[in-house]
């Protein structure tokens, strides 16, 4: 919390506390944050004794919490109140976890009670626990429906079985109606005619249909169904409703899908709509739109009608009230066949059933929200069970209310929505057990110890990451913006709007922008006089960051084009926990695939592949089969291909592919061979398919698709790129998505949606069904394991590309689509000597008992240790390495091979070994070879060791989890720019674009990259198109010429955390084909320093520079002192 805010909150807390101490013994509704820790006095049954302090640490005094909200002198209690038992659980869990920080409470009601002995006791009655931990409105509603479901799905991570075909049409129908309604409302408020409003609605429906079409393919309609017709039929009611609600433009503003967050309530959400009428005192109106789906909906006690969205609306209303918005009106709109029914919140069934009164300060409404929020916090954080196997297994034994949560049972839904909870369907939850599903009784206790230890070790780390994400919004609103911008680089302030085009906005300021925010980041744009998340913030995605401007694509229209804004990085606090789901799915499949049930399992009873992954069985050494028609593969590739084809079900193969060794080409051959082998084995609609390829990134997945269809055009009809065409997807890749193959966009854009939409959509779906039936190769990202195209399918073989960059839980996604008992073939392709997985913060991994050393995890391992790396160490005999590379010329290859691959890497052909830049330049029409780069040997090292001007600017950003220290080195930037400009000057005008396309500049720091980009433009405006990027973003790319700026040069020889991971330099150097230029301070990286964490990196840097010396001695490298460079001489 910021200094000023903390002082203010602390002052308020002191005033409130003082007031309580002197009160007349009557409870008071208050709203202040305090910190509490267990009092040394100790607690006893029914009473918790606490020591309270203000946010600034100032002591407030002792206080108590009693069961049932009792306090000395109270006239009556609140039976089954959740506050005391839940707080007791939280404190116990905190103590068990060894947490030393006090617990934050947002105090809502307390009393300065008079004891019978005449003393005073401060008693806390109602409060929100740990409000810095955000729960979304959807999660709150889920807790209300069934806390046990939240525990299983949000903490344990029980997912739906992706091999079960599960319809998703209803979801798309709802989205389509929402999408259309949103556009129609914006059009109507903007003064559109009825025709325009109707057209806007249909455009919204169309956009959703195009983007979510694969979800419809899970159904097999003979003709249009209600899922197809409803969105079109809803056009009339939506348009009529819009016209009735906003008959004339009256200055009402409509804020749609705005993110809002109450730091005092620990709840975030997005209301479908907030209507802000003109006039300062006119009440705002909050609207939640529902278009179907009665599971979990509250039933009206009088009419029996089901109404969803009640608690969500109540929660959002409470958030807005916490901002000081009083007199707020709220409603749930149900989109029906003929009309939209707007049900005011006070007439919603949830309000009627629970007898709530929505007047200000209604305590029962507060209890309802607080209970869902507090119990939800405990459930998603695992505070009820921790990693106690007994508690994990017995969580639901007593009732669906989670053991020991206490709580007022009246404040839960009458019936849990088990139909939409995966825990029952997977046999984990005995309460929601489904017929035909074998229950997994005592899952955690019967799992072999090593399997459980493996699950728990990764689970803890994933939950720690998630917890940090959930606290992100609180961090944003409680930290001064200057600190967020200056120290952490996650905020940019004082931005003015330079240009808006639709929802695209260009923001800028005169001061330089130095930030960690970059392209594709999710951000929140907020007026500078407001805090992020207070309704007026608009979400968006960054499309570009320049020296003094940022471009953002917003999700809603800008409210004030003349305003001054701040831009904040938005965390991933509400992302689906797909890695957690993959991890738990592995646990379920391993235990479910065991040969016995009903007792503790021995690890030998698990499926063979699970044993291999857990180090209990050896992976079989690579086998071989005769190969035909693999002329364009080199011997190591052939060996790897033959080994992959020789795999038996349940076996694992690891293929290490150093840079340029043709991993993707190998995968393309494998795809061809596997499809050929299984082409006639599967029928239309069959659950078993030949091959699934999952990559760590969209870029890698696209590259696989491109390579497969380019090398084997005859496979095109059978290859599916999972997902829909995305921005930046190459046309030949986009063409392989099912949406593109059925011609969705053209077909839906060409018709009158109102007249022909449902029929056209149904036809597209039937066409998609056929294409899907015949498809044999599916390519997607690891996060897409639950994608519609893959639901219901198991694969003979699953290949994971870039496995070295995937966390282990992410890699486990691949196993979700192996046949039952994991009896499929698993091929991991990657390189653990290139960049490791990206995790959102530097986490300390929990200790793993020594008895589980067989897992191959030791000190120093964490979520950043990829599954590929662990398995390569565990099963070295199952690892094949591709050693022949097609990218780097001889000297560059030698440098990389010596530095990072124990001299095993070699050029695949003499042509590769001997290619030189001058040959390429000559072909490009260059006749002037005077430029230093043009006449250089393949390796050029510009040493800045003796150059006093070439020192870095020091680390700018500090903080937990910040690895990019934002260093820069102006002198190195100038050298790089001058070298490039010098070469460019020699290029014939018509060939400059070709040179720019084949030139890349890399440094580990974004700050340095910004500086280099600016220097390049300064040297020659035509150089603005040169790609300047970080190592991490360059991985997978290559260029004829690559310049690397090392940056770090300082008196203490600090190489920083980025360089300390030597794999980063491997990636940087191995991007170059013909010319590699390194600019940096040799001594900074080779000097003896007393920092153990840098030892390995320094050893490799020494080897690297020694090899450059050796190359120089034989004329394959040039070493220049930067002080001798005559920059700009030409």
């Amino acid at each position, binding site marked *: 919390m910021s200094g000023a805010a903390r002082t203010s909150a602390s002052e308020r807390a002191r005033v409130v506390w003082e007031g309580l101490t002197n009160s007349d013994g009557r409870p008071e509704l208050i709203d202040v944050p305090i910190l509490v820790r267990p009092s040394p006095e100790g607690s006893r049954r029914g009473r918790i004794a606490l020591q309270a302090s203000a946010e600034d640490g100032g002591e407030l005094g002792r206080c108590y919490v009693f069961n049932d909200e009792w306090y000395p002198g109270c006239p009556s209690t609140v039976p089954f109140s959740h506050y005391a038992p839940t707080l007791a659980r939280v404190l116990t869990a905190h103590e068990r976890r060894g947490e030393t920080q006090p617990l934050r409470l947002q105090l809502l009601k307390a009393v300065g009670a008079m004891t019978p002995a005449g003393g005073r006791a401060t008693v806390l009655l109602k409060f929100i626990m740990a409000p810095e931990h955000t729960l979304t409105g959807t999660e709150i509603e889920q807790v209300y429906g069934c806390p046990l479901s939240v525990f299983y799905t949000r903490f344990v991570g029980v997912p739906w079985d992706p091999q079960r075909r599960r319809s998703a049409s209803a979801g798309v129908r709802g989205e389509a109606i929402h999408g259309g309604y949103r556009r129609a409302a914006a059009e109507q408020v903007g003064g559109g005619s009825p025709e325009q409003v109707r057209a806007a609605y249909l455009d919204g429906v169309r956009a959703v249909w195009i983007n979510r079409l694969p979800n419809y393919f899970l159904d097999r309609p003979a003709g249009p169904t209600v899922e197809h017709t409803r969105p079109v039929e809803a056009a009339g009611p939506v348009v009529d409703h819009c016209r009735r609600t906003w008959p004339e433009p009256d200055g009402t503003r409509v804020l749609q899908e705005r993110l809002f967050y109450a730091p005092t309530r620990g709840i975030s959400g997005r209301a479908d709509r907030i209507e802000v009428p003109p006039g300062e005192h006119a009440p705002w109106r909050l609207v939640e739109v529902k278009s179907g789906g009665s599971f979990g909906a509250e039933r009206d006690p009088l009419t029996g009608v089901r109404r969803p969205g009640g608690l969500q609306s109540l929660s959002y209303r409470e958030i807005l009230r916490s901002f000081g918005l009083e007199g707020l009106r709220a409603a749930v709109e149900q989109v029906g066949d003929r009309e939209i029914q707007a049900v005011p919140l006070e007439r919603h069934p949830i309000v009627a059933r629970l007898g709530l009164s929505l007047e200000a300060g209604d305590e029962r409404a507060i209890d309802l929200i607080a209970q869902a929020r507090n119990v939800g916090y405990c459930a998603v954080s695992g505070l009820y069970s921790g990693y106690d196997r007994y508690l994990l297994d017995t969580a639901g034994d007593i009732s669906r209310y989670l053991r020991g949560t206490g709580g007022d049972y009246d404040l839960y839904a009458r019936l849990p929505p088990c139909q939409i909870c995966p825990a029952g369907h997977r046999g984990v939850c005995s309460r929601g057990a489904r017929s*035909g599903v074998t229950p997994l009784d005592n899952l955690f206790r019967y799992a072999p110890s090593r399997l459980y230890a493996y699950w728990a070790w990764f689970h803890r780390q994933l939950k720690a990451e998630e917890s940090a994400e959930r606290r992100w919004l609180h961090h944003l609103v409680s930290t001064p913006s200057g600190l967020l911008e200056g120290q952490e680089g996650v905020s940019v302030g004082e931005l003015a709007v330079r240009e808006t085009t639709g929802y695209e906005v260009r923001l800028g300021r005169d001061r330089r922008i130095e930030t960690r925010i970059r392209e594709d980041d999710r951000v929140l744009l907020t007026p500078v006089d407001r805090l992020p998340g207070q309704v007026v913030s608009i979400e968006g995605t960054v499309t570009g960051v320049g020296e003094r401007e940022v471009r953002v694509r917003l999700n809603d229209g800008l409210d004030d084009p003349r305003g001054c804004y701040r831009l904040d990085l938005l965390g991933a606090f509400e992302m689906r926990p797909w890695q957690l789901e993959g991890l738990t799915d592995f646990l379920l499949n391993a235990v479910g695939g065991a040969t016995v049930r009903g007792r503790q399992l021995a690890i030998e009873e698990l499926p063979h592949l699970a044993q291999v992954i857990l180090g209990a069985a050896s992976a079989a050494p690579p086998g071989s089969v005769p190969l*035909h*028609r693999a002329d364009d593969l080199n011997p190591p590739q052939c060996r790897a291909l033959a080994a992959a084809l020789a795999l038996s079900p349940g076996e694992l193969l690891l293929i290490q592919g150093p840079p340029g060794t043709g991993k993707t080409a190998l995968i393309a051959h494998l795809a061809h061979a596997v*499809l*050929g*082998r299984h*082409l*006639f*084995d*599967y*029928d*239309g609609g069959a659950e078993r398919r030949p091959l699934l390829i999952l990559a760590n990134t969209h870029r890698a997945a696209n590259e696989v698709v491109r390579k497969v269809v380019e090398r084997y055009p*005859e*496979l095109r*009809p*059978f290859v599916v790129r999972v997902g829909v065409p995305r921005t930046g997807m190459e046309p030949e890749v986009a063409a392989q998505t099912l949406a593109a193959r059925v011609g969705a966009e053209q077909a839906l854009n060409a018709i009158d949606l109102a007249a022909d939409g449902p029929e056209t959509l149904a*036809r597209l779906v*039937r*066409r998609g069904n*056929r*294409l899907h*039936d*015949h498809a044999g190769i599916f390519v997607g990202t690891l996060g897409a394991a639950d994608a519609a195209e893959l639901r219901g399918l198991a694969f003979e073989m699953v290949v994971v590309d870039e496995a070295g960059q995937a966390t282990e839980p992410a890699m486990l996604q691949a196993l979700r689509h192996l046949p*039952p008992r994991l009896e499929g073939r698993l091929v991991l392709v990657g390189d653990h000597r290139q960049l490791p997985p990206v995790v959102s913060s530097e986490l300390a991994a929990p200790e793993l008992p020594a008895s589980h050393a067989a897992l191959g995890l030791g000190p120093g391992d964490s979520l950043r240790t990829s599954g590929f790396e662990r398995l390569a160490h565990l099963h070295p005999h199952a690892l094949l390495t591709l050693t022949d590379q097609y990218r780097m010329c001889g000297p560059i290859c030698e440098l990389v091979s010596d530095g990072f691959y124990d001299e095993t890497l070699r050029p695949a052909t003499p042509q590769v070994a001997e290619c030189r830049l001058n040959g390429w330049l000559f072909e490009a029409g260059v006749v002037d070879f005077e430029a230093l780069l043009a006449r250089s040997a393949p390796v050029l090292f510009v040493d800045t060791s003796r150059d006093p001007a070439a020192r870095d600017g020091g680390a700018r950003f500090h903080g937990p989890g910040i690895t990019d220290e934002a260093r820069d080195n102006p002198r190195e930037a100038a050298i790089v720019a001058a070298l490039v400009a010098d070469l460019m000057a020699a290029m014939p005008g018509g060939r400059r674009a070709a040179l720019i396309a084949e030139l890349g500049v890399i440094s580990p720091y974004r700050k340095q990259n910004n500086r280099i980009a600016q220097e390049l433009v300064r040297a020659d405006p035509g150089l603005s198109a040169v790609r300047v990027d970080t190592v991490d973003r360059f991985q997978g790319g290559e260029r004829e010429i690559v310049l690397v700026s090392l940056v770090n040069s300082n008196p203490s020889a600090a190489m920083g955390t980025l360089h300390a991971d030597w794999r980063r330099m491997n990636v940087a150097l191995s991007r170059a084909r013909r010319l590699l230029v390194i600019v940096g301070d040799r001594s900074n990286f080779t000097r003896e320093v007393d920092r153990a964490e840098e030892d390995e990196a320094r050893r490799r840097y020494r080897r690297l520079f020694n090899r450059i010396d050796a190359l120089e001695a034989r004329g394959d490298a040039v070493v220049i002192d930067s002080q001798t460079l005559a920059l700009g001489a030409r």
Partner: protein
Amino acid sequence: MDTLDAVQGLLHEIGPDVGCRHRFEPGSELSFDLLARLGLLRSIDRTVPACVEHGCPLLGRCAWEADFAGKGARRSGRKFRVTDAGRAAAADRRLLTRLVVDTLDGQPPVDALGPEPRSIFSLASDLLEADVAAVDDRTKGAGMTRRELGAALRMLAAAGVVDFTADGLEVRRCTDGAGAALTDVR
């Protein structure tokens, strides 16, 4: 053992009992639908016996067992009995070969095969196109599934009508045709 031998072996193995596609099809390169179309098997569409009733050796291990134990799942077209023609073909390879050639050789897309090798992917692609076209035309489609096509080609290869080349990835019509196969039956 070629595919026709495998067909005869299958018919012998089923004998008077029930043949379940979930037991016999996986890994066999045969298609029960195609064998039914050839008249060698007859689908049990009424009173489909539960797995325990015909003593399936996969009891307790088969993922489909539950479908036949209760109600709800579609059970027709999944269990078969051998027909009289099947029993005759099981005993007479020549008869089986003639049946295969007479029934399958003229069917699309086999009828389009010539002496030039064709990629199996392009044949499969023809099936796909026919299926997709049928969506718009509201016609039946290719009339043959991918598995049936594979089984048909393998049987025709065993009959000497076609042969596979390029490691099984291409197929062509034998220049001496089925006549040779029919006169050269083992």
